[in-house]
Every structure is written in structure tokens, then in C-alpha cells.
């Protein structure tokens, strides 16, 4: 997302690391409030604790808080937002490549970075 600055990142002595929101206690993913590079330390704001990012993760995208096995439900806001398409290690980027909707079959055929439908023919 362009335009949003996050003063929490790097301005507070005690708050090093990439800030991330845990929206509900039972969630197995967190939402990053700044982009992370692979290996960056991610700091969970509400739940406390830190975790190293296993991938580069864009701003406002999700990171696995713990190991999520294939077929397991992914929870955000305490709500089932989809199912893991494969085993997801702790710290990994959780998005279109490893998470699918329970309803919308289209979400499995989208470009990971742009979200554009790669199956659509233009002719």
C-alpha cells in the first residue's frame, strides 16, 4: 500500500522489528504493518513475542504465526478465511499460493503478486 507511513517502525527504541497485528487470539496468522524482508524480526503488537519472517512479505499481507498443516483452516479475526493448500512453515508468507477460499475457486488461479486472473484469455 502506498502512502501510509508507520511511525512505529524504527522510531521507538524498544520497538525494533516489523510490527504485526494479531487480530484475534485464536488466529494462526498476523497482518504486517510494514513490509518484511526474509529474516527480519516481526514483532506481534497485541500478543507480544517476535518471530523471524521466512519469506519477504509485502505490507498488510499475512504471516503464519506457527506451522499450519495442509488442509488446516486459516484463522484471521477469529474467522475461517480459507484452507491451507500445503504445509505452511511458521514465519511464511500466507497468500494465494498456499491458501484457498472455501467458496471461490477462482482464488487458486491468480498471479501471486498482482492478483490478476492468469486463466483469462484476451483474444
Amino acid at each position: 500500500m502506498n502512502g501510509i507511513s508507520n511511525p512505529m517502525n524504527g522510531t521507538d527504541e524498544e520497538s525494533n522489528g516489523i510490527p504485526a497485528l494479531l487480530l484475534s487470539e485464536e488466529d494462526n496468522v498476523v497482518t504486517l504493518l510494514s513490509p518484511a524482508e526474509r529474516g527480519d524480526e516481526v514483532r506481534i503488537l497485541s500478543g507480544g513475542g517476535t518471530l523471524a519472517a521466512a519469506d519477504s512479505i509485502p505490507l498488510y499481507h499475512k504471516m503464519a504465526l506457527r506451522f499450519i498443516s495442509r488442509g488446516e483452516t486459516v484463522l484471521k479475526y477469529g474467522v475461517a478465511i480459507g484452507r491451507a493448500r500445503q504445509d505452511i512453515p511458521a514465519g511464511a508468507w500466507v497468500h494465494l499460493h498456499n491458501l484457498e477460499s472455501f467458496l471461490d475457486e477462482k482464488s487458486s488461479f491468480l498471479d501471486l503478486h498482482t492478483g490478476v486472473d492468469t486463466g483469462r484469455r484476451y483474444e
Partner: protein
Amino acid sequence: MTSWTGYLRSDGSKGIRDWILVVHTVECARFVAEKIASGEENVCCIGYDPCNDNEYAIRLLLALSRHPNAGGALFVGLGCEYTQPRRLAEVTEASGRPADWFFIQDTGGTLTAVAEGKRRLAALKERVEKNRKPVSMGWQDLSVGCECGGSDATSGLAGNPLAGRFFDRLVDRGGTAVFEEMAELVGLLPELLRRAETPEAAEEIRAAYDNMVRYCTSVRQYSISPGNFAGGLSTIEEKSCGAYAKSGSRPIRGVIRVSERPSGKGLWLMDSLPDPYFMQFGYSNPHDTEGLMDLLSAGCQVLFFVTGRGSPVGAPLAPVVKITGNSGTFLKMEEDMDFDAGPILSGETGFDEAALELESLVERICRGDRSKSEILGHREYAIGCKFQDTGRPRRC
């Protein structure tokens, strides 16, 4: 207790504004209607474009001419359309609001019709002023509608949850709150049912939900787009969570359809999806203005529009309060945006403090301060060519 002066209507509802509407009953009368309303204070123009016979549009026009913020209406027809300005004026008049009408074809050409409209409008204004009944009103008399559009990730994290926090406070004080966008509740049936106040409400929610899922499945299109995916939302269920946050946490009393007023205080869900008979791809709400019209049709005196990416739109009749969770958007579009919820994400403020601040802004707007869209003169309107059954027997 917080109170301010509003306008009493004969049905007991109270308005925070006293608009006079100039309504065109077909596209062909739009130019004349707009000319009549042009340059007039507290007068705005709305209308229905198609010449066809549409019960949904008639209900919506009457919901707007009898809106709590409406004091009177002038209906302008061409003369050959199905929608009858005389009938609309009669029903509006019967609601205790001065109303008038005329056909352009009976009157003369553009210039003559505009002059006739201006003359009738001046007379109507006098009647509306004489008819004005100032009344004390407070949160318990207020109905606020909320929709989101031009969303980014901040909408689900800050903008919508903040609107939800406001809704909780409004409902707790006896006010009314309406949220919509059934298409962005897909995936959340258990959560919605858990919040249904009564078994009847649960049944209404389930029916509206099933209808929406059937629609999405049949057109293979859920309400999520490439920009949403790129912004970090991976599934419709996840996007729905963010949109759902604007409903707050209070029990859902029931489902209302377009042009239906809630039958009591509290939190209500609006279902604006057309009935299956008329449902084809593209018939769900085509843009944010139509969503705002839906909320207006439920009698909401104040409208919230949560937009992470920013939007300039406003509405006739009611102030639109535009809230963004993205401080960058707020800075870039400050002339349009009313409230910056971005400081919640940066940790500079909390939801409770921000909700208090938003509440004080709404209170000032109820007391007569104008929202940004009102100041700029935004009065976008749209009445779609749709159909929704009222559930009542229909006359042939």
C-alpha cells in the same frame, strides 16, 4: 444528555436537514429539473432515468421524498413516462410534506418549463418554511448507515472497525444503525447467525445470505478484485471480515430491503440484491452511489462511507461522513475526507478515543456543521433498474 434541534415529521421521525427535492420522473426531464434546482439553497435534484414501469424505483423515490431530512418535493415529469409525478406528489403531501408537480409537455419548452418550475419551487419553499416544526432530538432519534468502498487493507483494520465501534455506542443509546453489502459478508454465515437477535432475524439473515451465495456462484464472481489480492487479501472470506467489522458487535435485529425503514431501533442489515427473476451478471450494486442511495432509502439521516483509497462522492439529503484508515489518503484528499482513522494503526490513538472523536464530529454535523461532501456540493444520485419483491401481495 446530548441533544440538538432537528425537524419533526408527521410520522414522528426527525430530520437533521430540511431539503426540498426536485425530482425528475424520467431522464428526458432531468435537464429541466436540474435547471430548476440550480442556484437554490437547500434544494437538490434526484430522479429516475428509465421511462419504464418500475415498482422498485417508485418505492425508492417515495422513500426519498418522505426521508426524515426532506421537507418537501417538486416532481417534474416530461409527460409520456410511466412514473407519474402527480401520484408521487400526492403520497408525499399525505406524509405532511408540501409537494407539487407538473409535466413539461403541458407547460411549454425548456425555458418556459424552468420558469414554471422556479415559480412552483418558490411557492413550495414558503409552504415548507411555514410547515417547519423545530424539535429537540438526540442519538435515540438518529439512524446512521454505513458502507465501504475504494477499500484497502486499512479499511478492515481501522476504518471499518472504528465505524463498528461508533455503531455499538449509537445502538447502546437507543439509536439505529444500518449496514449493507451482503456480497461482502460471504463466508461469514456462522458469525452473522450468532449475532441474530431472534430466530426470525436468523431466518432472514440465512435467506439473504443464501441468495447472495447463489448469485455469486452462478456468475462465478465474488466481490473481490485484483487490487484487493495485491493489497494482501487472499480470499473473499478474508475481505468479508474487514467489511463485516463496520457492523460492530451488537445483535442484528433483522434484514431490511431497499426502501424499507427499520421497524425499531438497533442494528439492521440491508439486503440490496435484486430478486433472482431479474438477476443477471452486473445487477448487483454497480457503484458506491447506489449503495448510499439504499441506505438513504432506509431513512438514515447520516451516512458513513469508509474508504481506504479515498473517494470524492457525496449524496443528496444526508451528510456523508468519509472515514479513511489510511493517513496518506487523508492527507492527499483532505478536502474530501472527514475523518482520519490512520492514527489507530500507527498506535497514536486507540479505537475508544477515535470513536469518541468521531462521535463528536457526528454531533457537530447533526447540529448543522456541514460534512466535506456537503461543503463541496456533492449530491450524486442513482436509482437502478432493479426489482425486489416486498413480500406483499401485488396488485395487477
